[in-house]
């Protein structure tokens, strides 16, 4: 146990869904490093660029024609808020990877607007990650990453890149934006992997 602050009571939730050091919020706070980019649907695409040089891509209409999943997930922000039971709709990365051949172990997620974040491929496959376009029954707002964002709910939320454009597959774990600015390479909230 850490140093005790006498007189500090705090609010215990005792909720086992909360990772260490997290507290629950009912809001949906927005944290971004810069202004939110505006991406017209006609110009939107999602790509997966394999290390072989092969580039797979989907237009908005092609993406919407893929099998869609509805999911309920807890999300955990490194700034210590968690939001439980959030509802999303989108396409599993397992679906998007069906036609992709790769021997890479890592991916760099690229966003419209230039944001990047690195995620090991095993954290993206096996029913663990999605490209989502609907939140709480509504199209995803631009401030929250619309038209579509990556959703990797078992890692801290900065890994769930807003305004997702695509994935670049790499042989090595290349630090992305926050990972180059003092944050952890993997970001597992249950191990409190906040800072590097």
């Amino acid at each position, binding site marked *: 146990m850490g140093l005790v602050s006498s007189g500090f009571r705090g609010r215990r939730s005792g909720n086992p869904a909360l990772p260490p050091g997290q507290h629950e919020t009912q809001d*949906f706070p927005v944290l971004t*490093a*810069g202004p939110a980019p505006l991406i017209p649907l006609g110009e939107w695409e999602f790509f997966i660029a394999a290390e072989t040089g092969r580039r797979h891509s989907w237009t908005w209409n092609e993406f919407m024609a893929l099998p869609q999943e509805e999911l309920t997930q807890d999300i955990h922000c490194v700034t210590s808020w968690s939001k439980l039971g959030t509802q999303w709709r989108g396409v599993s990365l397992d679906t998007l990877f069906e036609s992709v051949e790769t021997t890479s172990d890592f991916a760099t997620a690229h966003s419209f607007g230039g944001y990047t974040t690195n995620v090991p491929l095993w954290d993206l496959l096996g029913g663990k990650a999605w490209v989502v376009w609907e939140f709480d029954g509504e199209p995803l707002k631009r401030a929250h990453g619309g038209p579509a964002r990556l959703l990797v709910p078992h890692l801290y939320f900065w890994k769930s890149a807003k305004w997702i454009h695509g994935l670049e597959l790499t042989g090595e774990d290349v630090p992305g934006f926050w990972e180059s600015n003092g944050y952890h390479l993997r970001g597992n909230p249950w191990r409190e992997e906040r800072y590097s």
Partner: protein
Amino acid sequence: MSTQWQVAEVVGGVPENDTARTIRLRVDGLTGHLAGQHIDIRLTAEDGYSAIRSYSVASAGMDGHLEITVDELPDGEVSPYLVRDLAIGDKLEIRGPVGGWFVWRPINRNRVQLIGGGSGVVPLMSMIRAHQASSNESPFRLLYSLKSPETSLYRDELARLDRESAKLMVDYIYTRSTPEGWPVPPARLTSDAFLGRIFPPEENPDVFICGQTVFVETVADWLVMAGYPADSIKTERFGGTGGNR
């Protein structure tokens, strides 16, 4: 940068206004930090329950010490304790300072436009203080949006710097009430009111915006529409129970 928890001692506490207080901490082994960084504070109750929040550093360049300014949230879990109960001589656990993005470095020679809403001025104040203490002569401009003059942080220091420093200009926008004799009535924020009080895009300022989510989103969009390049704008938000609580 230290990302391990360490003990800091409270060595000072000064009220900034009715709800905010600046707390000075002694941190052994601290050798400066970047202006704009934050620390995490962990409070632990007697039964072992602990809560962690992030607070921007307000001070600049004090070896062995740093200051944070905490604004009390009426329904907050941690901020009321820090503002009302924490006493000189108490010890806290802190981690950091951390952060390498929303920071100003004295080596940067661009002019700098700071835009703060309410207690969002805290990390900007660290940048102003670091700039004042440096030989960097690039002009700084602060636009400080406030509900009323009483809610201002660092009121006297900002007024003095605005008067005495050739490299800082301070502007205020009041949304609910103004100081006596203020030339314009309080008003909702508008794009025109903002854009008329900041360095224009052709002067290529580096822009730092900090405040509540809606404030930051709105202002950042106005700036992009007015032609400021998106990559010249850095933002930090105090949203919901997010960042600086």
